[in-house]
């Protein structure tokens, strides 16, 4: 047993933080929090605190990256040095580059990039505090930031993870479960079309467990979707 690993993950049907197996952590989303960015969002998801900012469409620098038929979408995921227990060495690393890439691929299918040829749409995701599930938090925040910037989109993109701890399939793991659990499955979807734009897996599931976890994660996404819509409505004071 490793240091910090709990003896049991689930006691009397409740998880270590008191949640049920299929319960999300508390999520707060706020749109339009930054004045200088074209669009922004701040998300608190359990212990995660993530800020997303969006710029554009704007001219592409360096020029050779521009596409003459569509806008390019650029995503940058970054963790603040103080976002984790041990100081995170600042700057891009293997992990953040991977997350930047999957975030872009999760968002790209919904953005009408064909409307803005020769431009770039930039999304910056800053993790201020991490507590497992930051890539999902980041995608959820980035999609609200894009909407806040007025960039045409087919839909919002909610994201949520499911996983396996103590032999049970659970929704939205927090850090202890994530560190010592058996599997993790982050998912992002396009809710209306029920299409999956992000699907990663870390650990081992049986096929039945995988299917159960995926279903659970999609249900979680739908709840996040409602919160995203609510956040946008609240910002612009409409019914």
């Amino acid at each position: 047993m490793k240091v910090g690993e709990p003896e049991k993950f689930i006691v009397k049907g409740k998880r270590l933080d008191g949640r049920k197996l299929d319960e999300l952590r508390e999520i707060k989303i706020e749109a339009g929090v930054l004045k200088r960015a074209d669009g922004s969002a701040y998300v608190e998801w359990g212990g995660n605190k993530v800020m997303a900012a969006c710029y554009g469409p704007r001219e592409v620098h360096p020029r050779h990256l521009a596409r003459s038929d569509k806008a390019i979408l650029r995503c940058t995921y970054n963790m603040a040095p103080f976002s984790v227990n041990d100081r995170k060495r600042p700057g891009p690393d293997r992990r953040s580059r991977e997350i930047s890439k999957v975030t872009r691929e999760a968002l790209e299918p919904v953005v009408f990039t064909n409307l803005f040829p020769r431009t770039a749409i930039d999304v910056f995701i800053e993790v201020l505090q991490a507590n497992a599930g930051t890539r999902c938090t980041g995608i959820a925040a980035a999609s609200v930031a894009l909407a806040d910037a007025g960039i045409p989109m087919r839909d919002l993109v909610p994201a949520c993870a499911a996983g396996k701890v103590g032999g049970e399939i659970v929704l939205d793991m927090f850090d202890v479960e994530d560190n010592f659990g058996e599997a993790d499955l982050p998912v992002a979807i396009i809710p209306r079309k029920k299409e999956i734009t992000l699907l990663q897996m870390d650990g081992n599931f049986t096929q039945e467990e995988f299917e159960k976890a995926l279903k659970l994660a999609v249900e979680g996404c739908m709840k996040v979707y409602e919160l995203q819509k609510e956040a946008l409505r609240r910002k612009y004071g409409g019914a």
Partner: protein
Amino acid sequence: MVIPGELIIEGKYKLGEGVFREQGKIYSSVMGFVDEKKGYIRVIPLTGKYMPKVEDFVIGKITDVQFSHWEVDIDSAYSAILNASDYFRDIDIFQTALAKILAPGDLIFAVVREISPTKKVYITMADRGARILKGGRLLKVGPTKVPRVIGKNSSMISMIKKETKCDILVGQNGRIWLNGEAERINLAVKVIELVEREAHTAGLTERVKDMLVREVKV
């Protein structure tokens, strides 16, 4: 109010900006308000960058001077081009240094003449309203708020101009240029900021009027 991906309506409509069709249903692609007129449906956006349209007046800032044209920043996704021939009809570019006419940093009030299929934006000074802006102050509002600043039949902007005795030009790209006495410009800026902040509320004209009457006397 609608948000991206929200179902607006089903049926046969012509599609304007901010909407898209998927399997016969029409959805919004941006945040905004639905506007339907004579079978033509669109969403008036609440936020977003300025997208140039032909015949729009814009306030541009010269960023670069070339042999036969200027490059102009119009605070949009695309920068604009002002050809020398769009400045003087009979210009001889071999005899004239364009930098002596307009240098980087100069402001102009110009009209969008053409947008090419590759989204190159051409602006022109060959219009009665177009001019070079000297002095004054530049203000920036959201391009989606510009119709409110101008008002119906330019009622709002005329009122602000009349009461503050300022020279004010509003570009569709959200830039506003003001010229006059410093005190009066300050007032006009305050009023325009009020309009931007409360653009979505009713009875705005009355409140602006009250503010102007109150402040002008002091």
